[in-house]
């Protein structure tokens, strides 16, 4: 057996780690652990000079195993694995100890945190002893792409990919393309027609030779899951207009969009009971019809707009939906140009006018002979009442003015509720079908909020548009096109690295009991009647390791998560604490 030569590198992360962990003392201490050849600490291990230290040391000291104690492996494991590769070492000869997210950032006592970091690093050193070289597996990429959702995001992504000459399957659960954007009259801040913009795109999509559109479509479950396979080679069966089609594709873009907040949930506003209280979704329809009239056919003399309906309030949704403020200003402009004599009351909590052209829209609107009023979006929401029939108006809005605290009554013939965006009711099901996760507000989680905002933790699955978070049309389109670029890049490369940390069977030890087959969620294991042992299909295996913990003979190994690696990690972790514990017991007796 080769001699194990371990290099240990402890990161300061500027002051992020060094403030709470005595990195210098630890790096001295680790020097004395078995097989550790060199132990160093450095300001930023992930920086180029930091990585160079590892690369040079591997060559100089003939290191064959590396431990880096720094941030979460979810952050920089790939960075350091690449450094190992640069130095000619197998990238799996590497282990990371998470002493930032799991230690320095979450504890307050420097001694305790240093003690914990010591245990975590010792565990990583013990584990890395048993690491073995794993060879990368390469799979081809199917150049077709599945896009779920035919709104503005789905359409934009589809066109981008199809114009590059690659096949797109666009599936839409409703009978028409265009989604929410198709129901909008004008767009803010420049008041351009949404119809002109989207109709042209829909036509192009419908007639594009590289795009197959499936309307009224749903995905049919197979093996309890709707999309099977992995990056580069997915497959699914869809049902569209009663017909079933089997699709094979290499990447998935999820663009399932949003659901408007149900305004009936806010009892104060009487939506559904008072006919002239309408939501912004209803008002777009009124605008599209060409005439702004109340339900009883009169021209409204007073119109009130209420912001933050279902948004920024713990009782409904705590987040901001980003688009409602500017949409409300758009309404003011549209109403003013259609009905110049109508009084408009814009009742808001905070005016959020960010992005190109928005602040300008706000200042233009505020000069339009209308009235801004404020309310508290957290408590004392406005109360909308039916006015008595003697009154010259239809509705009465009562609320406390936010700054003066004074009670105010506003008359209105029509009230527009600016409803926020919500995730779809079946978001969880969709997430499960494609293997991604939901955040607390049931929007899909991106891989990294800043550095990787369109990818997800499942390779080959991208999230775009409002299913990822509330956003406006420009943001949705940018995200859709970014995802399209990512998909095209993977098609261009033509091959993907497939998970190497799969299971493997030691056929000498396997007794053929087939327990593993019954627990595998991917049907990746099959029984060979000829050899009387189980065999793993490494293309299907995703490396969860459930089979290896079920195997009664220990014949199945989870690569990179072997029993020996994990047991050593536990032992290494406890070695320091154990001696301390013995001390306590001696004291006690």
């Amino acid at each position, binding site marked *: 057996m080769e001699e194990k030569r371990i290099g240990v590198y402890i990161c300061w992360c500027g002051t992020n780690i060094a403030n709470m962990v005595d990195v210098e003392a630890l790096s001295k201490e680790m020097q004395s652990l078995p097989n550790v050849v060199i132990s160093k600490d450095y300001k930023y291990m992930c920086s180029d000079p930091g990585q160079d230290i590892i690369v040079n040391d591997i060559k100089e000291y003939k290191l064959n195993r590396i431990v880096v104690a720094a941030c*979460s*492996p*979810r952050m920089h494991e790939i960075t350091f694995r690449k450094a190992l590769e640069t130095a000619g070492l197998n990238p799996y000869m590497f282990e990371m100890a*998470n002493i*930032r*997210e*799991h*230690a320095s*950032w*979450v*504890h*307050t*006592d420097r001694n*305790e*945190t240093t*003690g*914990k970091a010591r*245990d*975590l690093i010792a*565990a990583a050193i013990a584990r890395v002893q048993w690491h073995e070289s794993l060879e990368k597996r390469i799979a081809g990429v199917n150049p077709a792409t599945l896009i779920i959702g035919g709104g503005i995001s789905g359409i934009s992504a589809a066109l981008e990919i199809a114009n590059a000459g690659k096949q797109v399957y666009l599936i839409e659960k409703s009978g028409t393309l265009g989604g929410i954007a198709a129901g909008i009259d004008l767009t803010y801040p420049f008041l351009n027609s949404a119809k002109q913009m989207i109709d042209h795109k829909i036509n192009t999509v419908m007639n594009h030779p590289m795009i197959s559109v499936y309307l009224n479509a749903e995905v049919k479950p197979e093996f*309890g*899951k709707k999309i099977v396979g992995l990056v580069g080679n997915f497959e699914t069966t869809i049902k569209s207009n009663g017909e079933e089609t089997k699709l094979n594709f290499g990447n998935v873009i999820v663009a399932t969009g949003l659901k408007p907040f149900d305004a009936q949930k806010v009892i104060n506003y009487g939506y559904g009971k008072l006919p002239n209280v309408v939501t912004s979704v209803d008002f777009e329809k009124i605008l599209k019809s060409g005439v702004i009239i109340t339900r009883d056919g009169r021209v409204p003399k007073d119109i009130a707009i209420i912001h933050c309906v279902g948004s920024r309030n713990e009782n409904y949704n705590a987040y901001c939906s980003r688009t409602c403020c500017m949409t409300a200003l758009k309404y003011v402009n549209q109403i003013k140009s259609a009905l110049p004599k109508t009084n408009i009351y814009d009742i808001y909590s905070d005016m959020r006018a960010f992005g190109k052209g928005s602040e300008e829209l706000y200042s233009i609107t505020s000069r339009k002979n209308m009235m801004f009023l404020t309310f508290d979006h957290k408590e004392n929401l406005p109360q909308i009442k039916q006015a008595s029939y003697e009154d010259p108006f239809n509705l009465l809005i009562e609320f406390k003015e936010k700054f003066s605290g004074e009670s105010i009554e506003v008359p209105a013939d029509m009230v527009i509720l600016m409803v926020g965006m919500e995730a779809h009711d079946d978001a*969880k099901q969709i997430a*499960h079908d494609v*293997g991604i*996760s*939901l*955040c*607390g507000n049931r929007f899909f*989680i991106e891989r990294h909020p800043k550095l990787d905002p369109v990818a997800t*933790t*499942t390779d080959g699955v991208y999230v775009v548009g409002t299913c990822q978070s509330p956003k406006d049309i420009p943001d949705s389109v940018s995200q859709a096109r970014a995802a399209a670029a990512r998909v095209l890049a993977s098609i261009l490369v033509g091959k993907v690295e497939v998970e190497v*940390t799969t299971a493997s069977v030691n056929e000498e030890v396997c007794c053929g009991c087939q327990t593993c087959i019954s*627990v595998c*969620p*991917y049907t990746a294991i099959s029984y060979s009647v000829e050899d009387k042992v189980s065999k793993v299909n490494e293309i299907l295996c995703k*490396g*969860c*390791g*459930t089979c*290896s*913990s*079920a195997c009664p003979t*220990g014949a199945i190994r*989870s690569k990179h*998560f072997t*029993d*020996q690696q*994990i*047991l050593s990690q*536990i*032992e290494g*972790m*406890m070695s320091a*604490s*154990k001696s301390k*514990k013995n*001390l*306590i017991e001696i*004291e006690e007796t």
Partner: protein
Amino acid sequence: MQFQPVIVSFLCNWCSYTGADLAGTSRMKYASNIRIIRVMCSGRIEPTFVLTAFKEGADGVLICGCHPGDCHYHEGNYKCLRRFHLLQKYIQQMGIHPDRLRLEWISASEGKQFVELADEITETISKLGPARINKYMEVAKY
């Protein structure tokens, strides 16, 4: 010297480990007794891992996985749940208090819940005092 329990925690990569990372990036604070080991899925956690932790002197073991229905691998957490119930019975026969072994679901967005769990379990085990099972236990090694 005040007793500081050591709690070995096995966290699945996709939900719970990410949840614990979120607690870190949000700078939430919790007791420093939890020592986290990452596994790809809670379904990977063998009884041997838990018993080895106790043998090596852990005062408690915490297993965290994705919420039922949310498993990255569809159903690994259910496999884990079944093993957990069996293991709970087994450790009691060995003289280990059942509260020393816990299984909880933590999603990727539940940093706060992880922090609360860590503090709560640390308190529970501090009250139970040091586990002495490691004095009498031999676990077969592969």
